């Protein structure tokens, strides 16, 4: 494995409110290109907290976070926003689509923010992503006209629009039924294999986790166990 896309070194975090509680203890791990990893653990073990630190949205931690070799600590809020925009795709348990924008505009939004492509190119690319996820026909619809599974796929397309180095998910299948959950897993699988993007998915679903390349099991703010499965 060459330089990891994502590297965490001794990440420690406390919640100060209402009493000082340590939620993450000395977390260190790396994630390489094309790797599909899942984080599992009981509720409250700190897995989501870790994910938000790794996604640069939470900056209140101790330790070092490197994304593509660059240290994230000490960057300004605007610089971190830029990093999220360019290098990280995020999928949440809830889809968080903007109801005022069409599906296509929702997908295009992070690309427009990045401003690297012309509107025509961006639209073309958004269609490409939607086609990849099998929902190109819904592009002109508004989000509230879609089913839950479709919405989640739109959210994934949005996460992909800027070809991020890493895609993070906070229980992306948590609200989906088994069928849709399987669809989402297949999409992730393909992204890792065909597009060599790294994936880091927090999940409660043991079946989902079992199919990933690497399972990081957390308990009490620590990584308890790491199990890797050879790429198959």
């Amino acid at each position, binding site marked *: 494995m060459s330089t990891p896309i994502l590297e965490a070194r001794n990440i420690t975090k406390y919640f100060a409110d209402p009493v000082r509680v340590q939620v993450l203890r000395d977390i260190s791990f790396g994630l390489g290109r094309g790797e599909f990893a899942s984080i599992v653990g009981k509720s409250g073990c700190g897995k*989501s907290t870790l994910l*938000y630190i790794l*996604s640069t*949205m*939470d900056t209140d931690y101790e330790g070092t976070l490197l994304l593509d070799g660059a240290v994230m600590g000490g960057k300004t*809020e*605007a610089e971190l*926003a*830029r*990093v*999220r*925009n*360019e290098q990280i795709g*995020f999928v*949440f*348990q*809830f889809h*968080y689509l*903007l*109801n*005022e*924008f069409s599906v296509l505009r929702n997908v295009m*939004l*992070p690309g*427009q*923010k*990045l*401003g690297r492509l012309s509107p025509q190119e961006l639209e073309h690319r958004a269609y490409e992503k939607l086609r990849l996820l099998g929902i190109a026909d819904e592009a002109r619809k508004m989000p509230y006209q879609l089913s839950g599974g479709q919405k989640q796929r739109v959210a994934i397309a*949005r996460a992909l629009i800027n070809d991020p180095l890493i895609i993070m998910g*906070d229980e992306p299948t948590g609200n989906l039924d088994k069928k849709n959950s399987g669809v989402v897993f297949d999409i992730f699988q393909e992204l890792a294999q065909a597009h060599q993007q790294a994936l880091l998915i927090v999940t409660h679903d043991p079946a989902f986790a079992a199919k990933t390349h690497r399972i990081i099991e957390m308990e009490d703010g620590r990584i308890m166990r790491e199990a890797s499965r050879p790429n198959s």
Partner: protein
Amino acid sequence: MTMPLLIDVALSLLRARGRQTLVAATGVTFSVTMFIALLSFMSGLNQMLDGLVLYRTPHVRLYNELKPASRQPIDRYTRHRRQHNFIRSIKPRRELPRIRNSAAVMAAIRRDPRVRGVAPKVQTQVFYNVGTLTLNGTISGIEVEQEAALFAFADYVVAGHYQGLRTVPNSIVLGKGAADLMLVGVGDVVQLTTSRGEQVQLKVVGLFQSGLLDIDKVQSYTSLATAQKLLGESNTYVTDLQVKLHDLAQAPAVAREYRRLYEVQALDIQTANAEFETGTFIRTLISYAVGITLLTVAGFGIYNILNMMIYEKMDTIAILKAVGFSGRDVRRVFLLVAAAIGVFGGVVGLLCGLSLSAVIGQLPFEATSLPAVHTYPIDYNPAFYLIGGVFSLATSLLAGYFPARKASRIDPVIIIRGK
């Protein structure tokens, strides 16, 4: 590059909360409308009231005051001796308060490029005789054409015609109040007693109404020649020179200069009407205070709607931040929302203000003291529109700033994890 996108996002937020946004914008519209209408009306009224006095007042009045000579003959006689003279109870010589060499002074003033015109005047005390009764009065001998051109004399002659002073010998334009007291009208003859004790009969050719009752009771006008005749003086006798300037603001300086140059008393309009300026200033101040209060209230409306919008659109803000919008971008979005409300409400308000002042300007307004005014006076000053526009935008941005800053500080993690 991101600006069009931010505008898009701002517009979508506005659409999502259309009705509340409209209410907030209506608040701005209302306040700008009232601001414009109030100031236009107040300013129009101010100009009218100023005109009431200022149009008829000379910018600089030259006259002579009777007082003892500052250098007495004995001083001249003993100039080179080492002695000092004490003289008590000096009295001025009995003479009339004339301006010496008035023709030459008038010609010189007329040549001054700052001067629009100059009108001579002879003022004297008279008594109006009504049967056995006598009333106090003042009569002014005027050069009719000049007086009409410089001081809108014609506007205040409410009956008869002022030209009669020129065409009819021994004629008088009587104050309306005095005429009412004496029960005379145009065409009647009145009898006056001059300050020298002579009785003179003059034919009434017009009635004069200034709007100030105290003046109308005593003041009358006659021609310059008639007034000189009443006093038994030659045709060079003039008590006042009334100077009208091109620029009112120069009056004090001109007055100072003439005082020195022609050795007369010179009173400028600012000194003579100091309290008038104060009144105007206070009225303007009150209008601005009310207008700005209205705009501030509208600002609270904008503040409210933005705060609500932020609470409702927490998810949107959080996701915008998660996909790479910085706090600054979010702040801009909400400032754009505020500015949109301000600009839209402001522009509509300016138009409504214009219409409202136009409507007020059509309302009939008849005042006996203001014969030339028939509708409420409106001042269509572009400055009010500029101030109203700028202030509505500034208030909106200020009202939007704090909610926008709050939105920019929203922590996406808390929102997203809350679900």
